[in-house]
């Protein structure tokens, strides 16, 4: 009796999760450890095209699993990382890689921060060169005036 209900619940869990998402077989890692490591590296750079800003390494979506399988396949076939990346871009567009391409259009993106740091640093350096002369210490008159003002009584208050 209990078993029936438990089975029923289990089945419901499966049934409804099956509705939520097509069943995905668990990932089959590559036999060669070095290749698998390469695959894992690539996974972190490839965007899951249906998700919100997730890499296929992190995404539970079905298409992410497909893309992982595809990449593993290509590695096993002996393709280089570069070739695999180019192939993915050919299929899905620049959008699929998390590393933005290095083109004229993305020059500002890649070089901007470094140029800013160097430029601003240089500007500050130049300004530091043109140092103002050291401020001379307060003379007696100034000291007295300062002292009087700070400790002012009500009468001598207004400047």
């Amino acid at each position: 009796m209990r078993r029936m209900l438990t089975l029923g619940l289990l089945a419901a869990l499966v049934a409804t999760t099956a509705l939520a998402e097509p069943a995905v077989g668990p990932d089959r890692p590559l036999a060669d450890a070095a290749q698998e490591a390469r695959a894992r590296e690539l996974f972190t750079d490839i965007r899951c095209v249906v998700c919100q800003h997730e890499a296929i390494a992190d995404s539970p979506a079905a298409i992410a699993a497909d893309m992982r399988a595809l990449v593993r396949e290509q590695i096993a076939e002996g393709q280089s990382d570069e070739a695999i990346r180019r192939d993915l871009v050919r299929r899905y567009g620049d959008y699929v890689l998390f590393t933005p391409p290095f083109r004229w259009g993305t020059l500002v993106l890649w070089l901007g921060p470094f140029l800013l740091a160097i430029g601003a640093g240089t500007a500050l350096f130049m300004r530091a060169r043109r140092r103002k002369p050291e401020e001379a210490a307060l003379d007696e008159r100034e000291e007295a005036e300062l002292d009087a003002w700070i400790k002012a009584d009500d009468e001598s208050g207004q400047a």
Partner: protein
Amino acid sequence: MTIFWILTAALTALAALLVLTGARRGAGHISGMSETETDRLSGARELAELDRMKARGLLDEAGWKSARAEAGRRILAARRAEGALSVGARDGLWVLVGVGATAAVALALYFGIGRPGMLDQPYQKRVAEWAAKPEALEPAQVAAVMNAVVREKPDDVMALSMLGAARFEAGDAVGAASAFRRALAIAPDNAQNWARLGESLVRTSEGRIGADAEAAFREAVKRDANQLGARYFLGEAALARGDVAEGERMWGPILRVLEPNDPRRPELEQLLAEARAKGDKS
């Protein structure tokens, strides 16, 4: 309603009081610390800070002298003519006008945006209202009422069954299945509940009759061979599997019970015929 307006007025009055108190405190500002005073204090603090930094070794002697000079000259240069703070004769009146305008504008905007007088509808109150007049309720509301009953009396099989039925009607098949399961856990010999459980499970999988649903239907038929609904689904599942004999066994009693001119009869008969034909062919 009245309470609402009283509270609204109280809130506005409190706000007005705060603003007027602030205005009065502001008047006291004249005799309080003036800007020159604050400047004096900051100046003293700044110079003391430099002394402290020197004492801690964060500033060397020459640096201290120079820093003190810079600070001192800046302080002296920044002395300001006491910007006269004035209290106008009618400042208080202006504040009052402002407060009044605020109240008026707030009220006007509220009439435009809000719904004055609309009562709260806390869930418990609504459920109690529904429980009071059970005749004119929609299934979802019935489900809500039954849910409240079940929460109080978790072992009430009747309530659980009604909850399940109501949820089923309201379209919440998953919730219905859960309710029926709980009912059956207490009273497993209720054939009708088994059948309903099966139907709920079928609805959750959008018409597909899964193993769990089938099991539920079998339990129903085991206890009461006249559960026609259960028989129908079992028959359908059997035919889907290609088991014609089972299908005929299941649907036999249904066909016997149906009126000759019941529109469902030809449908069932046709499905059986098709299944037989497919069976013969293979």
